[in-house]
């Protein structure tokens, strides 16, 4: 067996040297004969505009496409290209919690964060999590009067009416809430209420109330780029509305894969950690 250091050195050096070429070589081999080999998974290409905004027959931007978080139009190992916004250019404030809510979040332990995170407990991301905390790609399908979001993450979908209809007067609380949308010029404004209180808006404890109101603004300024900016109002938890940076997705040319959070053994592990933590107190 190689020594740990030697092996690591070997891996890291070759990682650096063969980063792109080796992936391409392996995929050219197509060991199973039907390998999906998206070229944009191999190297960090930051997509340019690619062309003008596509439009539907009614003149609205057509948001349809498979969208990858970040700037590469695919899965990429380039950290910079994965970034959805530059905080120096479009900073994002932390959620403006009311004092009691801030105290509640501050009292959470690392294990509480782990247990509460949708990526660990496998709860649906919901709205606005499908946009704010979703590193997996999604497909948008726009038809007259509706926008369908198909998320690779947990094979979740939502169907958003885009005809500006009013909210259901008596909606049930659901993970994706009661959604309606309208066009404001070239921006599709999605308005959501009645969101299940069990979801978090980030991975570090941003819980919300039954009064949460989420506004998502979808724009497609060119062929390759989709921006979504999210505003969250929550009079029971926040002191004022919070607005995200415009977050970028880029156009991919591959089908979605299947991804289900089916829990493996994680929750039990974290519960064991939590028990340990509690017994120390």
């Amino acid at each position, binding site marked *: *067996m*190689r020594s*740990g250091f030697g*092996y*690591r050195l070997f*891996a*890291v050096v*070759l*990682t650096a040297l*063969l*980063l792109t070429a*080796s*992936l391409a*070589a*392996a*995929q050219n*081999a197509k*060991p*199973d004969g039907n*390998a*999906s*080999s*998206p070229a944009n*998974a*191999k190297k960090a290409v930051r997509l340019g505009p690619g062309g003008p905004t596509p439009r539907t027959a009614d003149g609205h931007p057509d948001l349809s496409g498979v969208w990858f978080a970040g700037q590469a139009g*695919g*899965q*990429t*190992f380039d*950290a910079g290209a*994965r*970034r959805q916004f530059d905080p120096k250019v479009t900073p994002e404030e932390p959620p403006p919690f009311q004092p009691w809510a801030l105290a509640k979040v501050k009292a959470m332990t*690392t294990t509480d*964060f*782990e247990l509460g*995170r949708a*990526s*660990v407990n*496998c709860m649906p991301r919901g709205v606005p999590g499908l946009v704010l*905390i979703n*590193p*997996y790609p999604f497909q948008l399908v726009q038809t007259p009067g509706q926008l369908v979001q198909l998320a*690779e993450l947990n094979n979740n979908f939502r169907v958003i009416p885009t005809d500006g209809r009013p909210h259901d007067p008596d909606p049930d609380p659901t993970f994706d809430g009661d959604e309606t949308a309208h066009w404001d010029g070239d921006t599709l404004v999605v308005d959501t209420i009645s969101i299940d209180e069990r979801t978090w808006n980030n*991975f*570090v404890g941003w819980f919300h109330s039954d009064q949460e109101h989420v506004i998502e603004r979808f724009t497609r300024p060119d062929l390759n780029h989709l921006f979504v900016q999210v505003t969250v109002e929550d009079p029971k938890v926040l002191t004022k509305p919070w607005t995200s940076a415009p977050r970028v997705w880029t156009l991919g040319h*591959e089908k*979605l*894969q*299947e*991804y*289900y*959070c*089916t*829990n*493996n053994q*994680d929750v039990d*592990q*974290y519960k*064991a*950690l939590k028990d340990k933590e509690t017994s120390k107190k």
Partner: protein
Amino acid sequence: MKHKVQIGLGLLLVLVAAIPLWAHHSITAEFDTSKSFTAKGTITKVEWVNPHAYLYMESKDEKGAVTAYSFETGPPGNLRRAGILRTMFAVGDSVSIEAYAAKDGSSHLGLVKSIQFADGHSIVMGKDPKEIERVNGKE
């Protein structure tokens, strides 16, 4: 095996996927990224399932005592997009796996960093999870 001949081409080949292949949950919560170990043995099972694919291995020491290991990898979809396919692993393959150690003290569970095959080619799934996590935010 045919595919190994194909992808090896007589050369040392490294597949790299220094991307958030372990995106399902916090890497640092479940695994201790300051502790790695390497184990050599034979693949006994390939479990290519959501949310994370697993490789199982048995290792034999000089006295013949057998130790079973479980190695976690990434979501199958992410692996596929990175060019890492189920068919690149077969029961019976002799491998040396370097992995991050489990935080809860399970000594035979690891998060795969890299897998080296007997013919010299290897598959690297990530080299610095802290960096990956730092950049991606916690996921």
